[in-house]
């Protein structure tokens, strides 16, 4: 599907990767750097065709390390930029994701998750990169990660990811999976005025007064770009508000790293999004995300049909973690059922917030996701 326009308002029958790509385009992404990898390749392929149609740039780099570096460069040069990959490439990107965090670079990393570790299962779905997304790079930091569970969301959440990245100057991740990526569904692309687009804050001071890393109240510093005459310096080293290296100054390090975390933590309420289905009176709360959430939803419906008070809590934002929502649900729930396509990653966060409420983890991976019946079983077992 090619359209010649950057915003293809209307209904389309496309797969998730394409939807993601169109989302990026719609969000104003004008730079993509990547490296072929299943099952994210279609995003690159589609953007290599689409980007030039309206002056955007597609570049295939020599590896994912380079792709991530190029994305940061393009972002500092003023373009909204992204890359897309899968587990192995995601690992390679971690180094420069750290750099993006340190230099507060707005950018989007799409990870279409597959089975790992290592090369693992290139063609099968997984949810094994959830923790890598949060902790993958060295040092202390916060990022934002979103989890789409439909092709439509592959579009809307990509747009959202860009908005958040630009607003908070933070690398934002879209953690899809092989199924959402390759699934074909109807997607509605809104018109320009329906579409909310956020752009990074520009400095309001004169170049000589500009301090590139001096934050506003929201803890996010306005961002000048290369070539705009601000002549600023940015570095991966611990730096002061000038951007100058301060590698041995504890105070500077403490202040900087805390702010990098706080600008996400303190704005968590504005960032976090969840979908709550029949949660008000739920005894059994199914906590599921990504493609799994769709089996979970039908399981919850079936359970209600059987008279079990089941409800669905679907985190759309995986990071920052929707702590308040889980705590609230935990208050009157008897149990949590957490189906994940991994050996248990996000379930640990659920357990931390569920406090005394028992959490039942439902692990399945290596083939197709959980069926509704498998989850229904778990709901039944925990409804005691």
């Amino acid at each position, binding site marked *: 599907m090619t359209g010649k326009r950057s915003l293809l308002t209307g209904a389309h029958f496309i797969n998730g990767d394409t939807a993601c790509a169109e989302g990026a385009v719609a969000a104003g992404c004008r730079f993509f750097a990547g490296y072929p990898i299943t099952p994210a390749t279609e995003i690159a392929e589609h953007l290599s065709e689409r980007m030039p149609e309206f002056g955007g740039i597609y570049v295939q780099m*020599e590896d994912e390390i380079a792709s991530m570096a190029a994305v940061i460069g393009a972002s500092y040069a003023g373009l909204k930029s992204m890359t897309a990959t899968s587990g192995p490439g995601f690992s390679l990107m971690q180094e420069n994701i750290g750099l993006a965090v340190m230099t507060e670079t707005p950018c989007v990393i799409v990870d279409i998750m597959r089975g790992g570790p290592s090369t693992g299962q290139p063609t099968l779905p997984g949810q094994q990169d959830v923790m890598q997304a949060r902790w993958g790079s060295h040092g202390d930091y916060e990022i934002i990660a979103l989890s789409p569970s439909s092709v439509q969301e592959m579009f809307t959440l990509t747009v959202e990811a860009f908005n958040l990245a630009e607003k908070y100057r933070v690398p934002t991740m879209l953690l899809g999976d092989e199924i959402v990526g390759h699934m074909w569904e109807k997607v509605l692309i809104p018109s320009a005025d329906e579409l909310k687009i956020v752009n990074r804050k520009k400095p309001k001071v004169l170049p000589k007064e500009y301090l590139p890393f001096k934050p506003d109240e929201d803890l996010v510093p306005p961002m000048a770009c*290369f070539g705009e005459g601000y002549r600023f310096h*940015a570095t991966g080293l611990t730096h002061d508000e000038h951007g100058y290296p301060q590698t041995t100054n504890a105070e500077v390090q403490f202040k900087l790293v805390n702010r990098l975390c706080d600008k996400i933590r303190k704005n968590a309420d504005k960032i976090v999004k969840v979908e709550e289905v029949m949660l008000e009176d739920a005894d059994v709360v199914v906590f599921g995300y990504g493609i799994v959430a769709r089996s979970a939803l039908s399981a919850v419906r079936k359970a209600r049909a059987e008279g079990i008070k089941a409800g669905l809590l679907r985190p759309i934002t995986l990071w920052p973690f929707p702590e308040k929502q889980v705590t609230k649900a935990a208050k009157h729930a008897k149990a949590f059922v957490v189906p994940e396509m991994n050996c248990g990653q996000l379930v640990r966060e659920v357990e931390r917030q569920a406090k005394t409420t028992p959490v039942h983890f439902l692990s399945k991976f290596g083939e197709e996701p959980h069926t509704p019946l498998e989850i229904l079983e778990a709901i039944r077992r925990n409804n005691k």
Partner: protein
Amino acid sequence: MTKEILQHPLSSYLRTDMMPHIWCPGCGNGIVLNCFVHALDELKMDLDKLVVISGIGCIGRTAGYTNTDSFHTTHGRSIAFATGVKLANPELNIVIVSGDGDLFAIGGNHFIHAARRNIGIKVVCVNNFNYGMTGGQLGPTTPLDAITTTSPYGNSEHPFNLVHLAAASGAIYVARWTTLHVRRLTQSLKKMMQKEGFCFVEVISPCPEVFGRRNKLKSGMDMMELFKKASVVENFSDPAKAEITPEKIVVGEFVDIEKMSYEKLFHEKIASINEKTMEQVR
């Protein structure tokens, strides 16, 4: 001598509030920085359109010292980062000043591919034959038998010939000088800045503190004297034969050709596609 506080005529090109630089006495990095700003001055460069990018290592600090937009990337990634910048805004002049280890060990892959694409990035490699900042370990340019902290019995690895590598990878301008050849180096830097495409200038530079003193070159001066003794200018000779030995250091310009740059090809394509697009929209 005049009494008033002295202002170096080139200080406007430097972030004086970051001076003095961190480099050791006799280190060649300062000379390279000096030549670079001389070149900028002679070219009357628009500093607002110049981005200086560097990787990790002593010389990596250069980006911080030039009064331009500048970025100090992760180890070895300066070229990949710069590729993004150049593609995103082709109007910007992009210069990378980094070290031999950064550009050719951890960053080697990025280097050859950038050269292959012929993207408009100007790379200055300050070659001091070892990893200076980490205390003098062996690197991709360390000469055979040289003593470093990680080759205490003498280096057994064959070093890269950087100008040969650059030429073979497709760079359109390749030169090598030593920190003693400040005039010619400055000329080369000027030439490089005016070319369109991937350019490479290698600067052989003294690292007296951690490389020199382990290899019978106690001071920067000893090394500069060696440069004076051993350098032979062989312009446009075969870079494959451009040796670096204690007896002979072949310096000069080796490649100076014209080739359509990647960003130019790319953006021309985009332009033509856009025109088609417009027609189809009408």
